[in-house]
């Protein structure tokens, strides 16, 4: 813009823009930027919750301990399994529900309303509700499965190391599929109708229409939705914490980090774990943006 005459109007607008942004930027810097910086900083120290202002630098020690802790790797594994499986199922199911909602059939309104309910329920409440349903002694799940003769004796769903993670995934699928379905539905509703009419007139098989026309067209929106859900899943905390506490069989990276930070008061070590989690999220984003060519519309 240099060299051109600046009208006072444009200048005034730009100045106002920065002025308007300032409060938000200050707040974000205060609640996000600075704390993040402190977390990374703490990760190179031996700070504890009690001695947040008296600590010593320990270099990479925290990280070296971390990579040698099998529980940490278990948490990484749990998080990845949880993310891949739950997001995968949610995408498939969400796509199915979105297609049903998009087809103009009776019962659509009811279905949409019903599907919104899990989304509206707080995660903690969902976890408790399912925790109760999966209760080993009095849970309705055991009662139904035994009634149907599918299992012979009650299972300890949330305590059994082999079953706990699947249970957590099942609850997440229940809770998050609606979000997926709604986002996909929005994408579906933006597709031109005459496209489908043309395909129907040409007698193209519906499955082929879906694979050849629908899927490529909603792909960008689908990818963004998947990315959002993935980032959300990678930082999961509430579900595991409420359903299974700090149990190792389901512990996510967030649960691990918080356990050290708060329960064990080892801020330095916990911060190192939290920092690694940020790196994993950043890597996932970069991967999605480059490999999946996800285009997040950040201002035209």
């Amino acid at each position, binding site marked *: 813009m240099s060299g051109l005459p600046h009208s006072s*109007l444009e200048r*005034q*607008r*730009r100045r*106002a*823009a920065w002025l*308007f942004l300032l*409060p*938000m930027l200050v*707040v*974000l810097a205060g*609640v*996000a930027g600075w*704390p993040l910086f402190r977390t990374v900083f703490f990760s190179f120290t031996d700070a504890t*919750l009690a001695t947040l202002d008296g600590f010593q630098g320990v270099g990479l020690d925290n990280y070296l301990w971390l990579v040698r802790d099998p529980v940490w790797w278990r948490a990484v594994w749990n998080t990845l399994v949880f993310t891949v499986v739950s997001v995968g199922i949610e995408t498939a199911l969400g796509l199915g529900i979105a297609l*049903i909602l998009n087809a103009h*059939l009776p*019962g659509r309104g009811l*279905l949409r309303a*019903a599907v919104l*309910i*899990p989304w*509206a*329920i*707080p*995660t*903690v*409440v*969902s*976890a*408790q*509700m*399912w925790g109760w*349903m999966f*209760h080993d*002694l*009095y849970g*309705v799940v055991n009662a139904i499965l035994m009634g149907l003769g599918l299992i012979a004796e009650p299972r300890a769903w949330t305590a059994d190391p082999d079953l706990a993670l699947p249970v957590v995934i099942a609850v997440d699928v*229940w809770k998050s599929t609606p*979000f997926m379905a*709604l*986002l996909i539905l929005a*994408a579906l509703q933006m597709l031109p109708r005459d496209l489908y009419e043309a395909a129907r007139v040409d007698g193209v098989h519906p499955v082929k229409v879906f694979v050849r026309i629908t899927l490529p067209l*909603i792909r*960008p*929106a689908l990818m963004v939705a998947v990315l959002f859900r993935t980032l959300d899943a*990678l*930082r999961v905390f509430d579900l595991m*914490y409420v359903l299974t506490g700090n149990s190792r069989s389901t512990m996510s990276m*967030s649960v691990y*980090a*918080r356990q050290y*930070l*708060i329960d064990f008061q080892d801020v330095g070590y*916990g911060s190192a774990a*939290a920092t690694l*989690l940020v790196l994993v*999220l950043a890597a996932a*984003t970069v991967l999605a943006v480059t490999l999946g060519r996800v285009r997040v519309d*950040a201002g035209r």
Partner: protein
Amino acid sequence: MGLRRIAFALVVLGIVVWAVFPFAWAIVTSLKAGSALFTVEAWPSQPSLANYAAIFKEQPFGRNILNSLMAASAVVALSLGLAVLAAYALGRVRFRGRGLLLFVVLGVSMFPQVAVLSGLFELVRWLGLYNRIGSLVLSYLIFTLPFTVWVLTTFMRELPKELEEAAMVDGAGPFVIVTRVFLPLMGPALAATGLLAFIAAWNEFLFALTFTLTDDARTVPVAIALMSGASQYELPWGQIMAASVVVTVPLIGLVLLFQRRIVSGLTAGAVKG
């Protein structure tokens, strides 16, 4: 054709049951008092509101609800106030660095919360907000603010350019344009965005768990997660379910009432094909 319709109806029915059953079961459980809790029956033989009475008498649940309401309302009001101005700047003024700023805002909303936990803990303690609602308002801003900025920016961008230009010709500066021309037009957008931010704040768990200590200072999700009964080994499931129902019914009501708005708010915030 008929068979296909029936199969289809069954699928839809299955999804509806799957979506609704857990909550319905929570309602049923919440009506079971005493030992009825430990029998699996579709409807309690003697429905009782004892659990509902207990959460307000034996537990400080009324106080918890109040805490949640105050924290969520304050953070939503604060976020909307900050976001409307920021959204005008991001949505309607061209300046260098705008794309980067939007990206940063989106990035912050994707932050894992544990990543700021130690830094925030330090800040909260330094400000003397530990175990107070202020700590929650402060920490919730980290997700409500980026979200409201992002959604309002997309709404702001859709407002007609000529309206703003007419106001400029009328002598309105940027602040007057935002407050007296755009803001009155953004009622629905503000309602949808505010509602979604409110729900997010209302549901938040990690910060509330970490920054509060006493039963009285807890928010609803923490109270529900940590609710304990007479003995440590015996969780008061009836009360937990009653509390769950109490906080969820208004949410479900709101969500069903504002269905369309919410869907458009969500998609404006998340997906732009």
